[in-house]
């Protein structure tokens, strides 16, 4: 219940300001930001990683005094609701948060829930910003004016993996990727890119990483085709199992991890990189090399007792972007204005953020970088290679290279 702290209408605010110009300190107003996602059930940990990132970001924003608009200070509070990845509950939660907490923006990390939210986020007089955490390109195809797509498209990894693998001389790939919207698209995309290059997918053995525990069946079938490399992945924890079981079945070759799985997390579960020689995947945040990343990692792990995942990293950065966009728009409750202000708040670079966001594309996709890192034959991590998805010119890339803290950045041109 924060009825007494409801953000005031702009005119009213200005009138207030006029009266109180010389009042030095005004009580900060609390703005509630919404989150709905799976906080129980099989995808609970994934949901929590997202919530943690946003919450951690809000904590930092608030401890730095929040944002100021026309002399009024605003702080944030996150209302995180569980929907068990059930779209019905997602809608109910969103309705409640709009209705009772007047949230201007709602974060959600599950594609099948984001879509119905985008069905109601443009209702007249009831708009809200859809802060979508999903790396599938499908989000953008829904063409919603009030959507912000937070993580970089996974197509970056698809292309990067394919390039690297091709250059290694590998030709036959076997896939054992998670079932589900995200996994299905990943497999499809990779197959397309890989076959376009002239490579072959010799086995496609998907498994439900959320419900299954033994992957021997799929692995045996995949390995029987003698692939040059394995493409596996889903959430980090089961992915670690897959890696381990592949090694148990005698596979010694390279393994590529889709971006949902995080190498450092997998390594932690497997108790080191012994089983991970020749693994390629998304680098640990700390290895990306932004100045802030180390600090973030330390603080985060202290607070939440788990490794910071990329979900946490991007959400942390995104909530900062949202706050900045509000400040820029001069409003905390006009989703349209905030959305329009978004492109102006970039870039958010590595001195202050664990990940970098450079700009926003036409349909609300934030442009960040995607990294690829390999573990060599001695079990040592190599320096990550970073890619930016971009449709613009070399000039812009050069500009980004100028501000970015992440070191080596490559251009990657894809049409989403």
């Amino acid at each position, binding site marked *: 219940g924060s009825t007494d702290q409801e953000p005031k209408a702009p005119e009213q605010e200005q009138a207030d300001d006029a009266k109180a110009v010389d009042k030095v300190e005004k009580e900060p107003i609390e703005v509630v930001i919404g989150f709905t996602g799976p906080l*129980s*059930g*099989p995808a*609970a*940990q994934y949901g*929590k990683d997202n919530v943690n990132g946003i919450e951690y970001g809000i904590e930092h924003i608030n401890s730095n005094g929040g944002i100021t608009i026309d002399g009024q200070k605003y702080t944030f509070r996150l209302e995180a609701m569980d929907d068990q990845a059930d779209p019905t509950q997602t809608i109910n939660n969103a309705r409640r948060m709009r209705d009772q907490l007047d949230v201007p923006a709602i974060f959600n990390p599950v594609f099948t829930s984001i879509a119905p939210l985008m069905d109601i986020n443009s209702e007249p007089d009831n708009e809200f910003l859809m802060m979508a955490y999903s790396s599938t390109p499908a989000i953008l195809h829904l063409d919603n004016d009030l959507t912000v797509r937070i993580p970089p498209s996974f197509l970056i990894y698809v292309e990067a993996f394919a390039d690297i693998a091709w250059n290694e001389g590998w030709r036959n790939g076997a896939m054992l990727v998670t*079932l589900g919207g995200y996994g299905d698209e990943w497999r499809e995309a990779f197959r397309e890119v890989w076959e376009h290059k002239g490579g072959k997918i010799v086995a*496609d*053995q*998907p*498994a439900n990483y*959320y*419900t*299954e*525990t*033994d992957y*021997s*069946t*799929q692995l*045996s*079938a995949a390995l*029987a085709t003698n692939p040059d490399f394995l493409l596996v992945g889903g959430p980090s*924890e*089961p992915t*670690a*199992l897959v890696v381990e079981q592949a090694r*148990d*079945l*005698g596979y010694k070759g390279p393994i590529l991890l889709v971006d949902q799985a995080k190498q450092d997390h997998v390594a932690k*579960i497997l*108790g080191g990189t012994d089983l991970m020689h020749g693994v390629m995947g998304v680098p640990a945040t700390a290895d990306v090399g932004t100045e802030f990343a180390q600090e973030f990692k330390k603080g985060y792990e202290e607070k939440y*007792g*788990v490794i910071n995942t990329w979900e946490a990293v991007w959400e942390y950065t995104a909530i900062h972007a949202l706050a900045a966009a509000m400040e820029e728009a001069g409003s905390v409750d006009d989703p349209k204005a905030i959305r329009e202000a978004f492109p102006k708040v970039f870039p958010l670079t590595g001195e202050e953020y664990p990940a970098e966001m450079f700009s926003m594309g036409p349909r609300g996709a934030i442009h960040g970088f995607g990294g690829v890192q390999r573990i060599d034959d001695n079990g040592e991590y190599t320096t990550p290679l970073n890619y930016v998805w971009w449709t613009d010119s070399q000039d812009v890339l050069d500009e980004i290279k100028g501000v970015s803290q992440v070191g080596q950045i490559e251009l990657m041109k894809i049409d989403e």
Partner: protein
Amino acid sequence: MELFLQQVFNGIMLGSTYAMVALGLTLVFGILHVPNFAHGNLYMLGAYVTFFLISLYQFGFWAAVISSMVILGVVGMLVERFVYRPLIGQPHINMFISAIGLLILLENSVAVVWGTSAKRIPHPYPDTVHLLGITTTQQRLIVIVAAVIMIILLQLFIKKTIHGTTIEAVAQDREGAQLVGINVNWVSSMTFAISSAFAAAAASLMAPIFMITPTMGALLVMKAFVIIILGGLGSMQGAILGGYILGLVESLGGGFISAAYKDVFAFGALVLILAIKPTGLFGKESN
């Protein structure tokens, strides 16, 4: 051929898990007719207990497994006493609802108390083994052997002592059982204790190979129900055979036809078998 053997091995390994869980469930569902959908959660709880005994209290692996069985046995008795016994005499479907309630309660309590991130027990026997062209680990072999031993022990206990008949008697006519001097509540308690201990044993043996999460039992319990029905309610041989059949159907169907549809084969097989034989492979009774 090598692949085929490998898949058969995988199927047997999976089947061992299934058979163990299904056998525990047979006692309470097949014989006692309590549709304990929370059996998978007791399995999960067993894995957590083993995990904490090993990681917090430095128990050895086997000591932890046995302690976990004992602890879950007690939990099983409590479950029987407070969740199912008050419902005796009511329609079966009410027990089903209360099982769903228990399932939700256990899964979420564990998630709240111990977190949702996956836990891992270090491999006590991590070495790889090669035989007959099959590659596997010692732990997996241990699972298979241990499963067979446990299954035989339980079979002996049920078939060779009067206890098995006692459980059946209680299930078939509670009043009749009382009239011959059986303490029906005690028998129900013991049945749940054995069933839960069995689940804990299965989970603990499997834990080093797999991952421990609050939802690890969700799909498994469903399969266990399918297995019991496939084998025929109340039939121990049915549950064992059903477990191995399901494991093999999954590994061979998944490995050679389609991985995405492997559960469709398993569940579809049941629908078809029941269409032909409505009381399962070894079933005698029809309700």
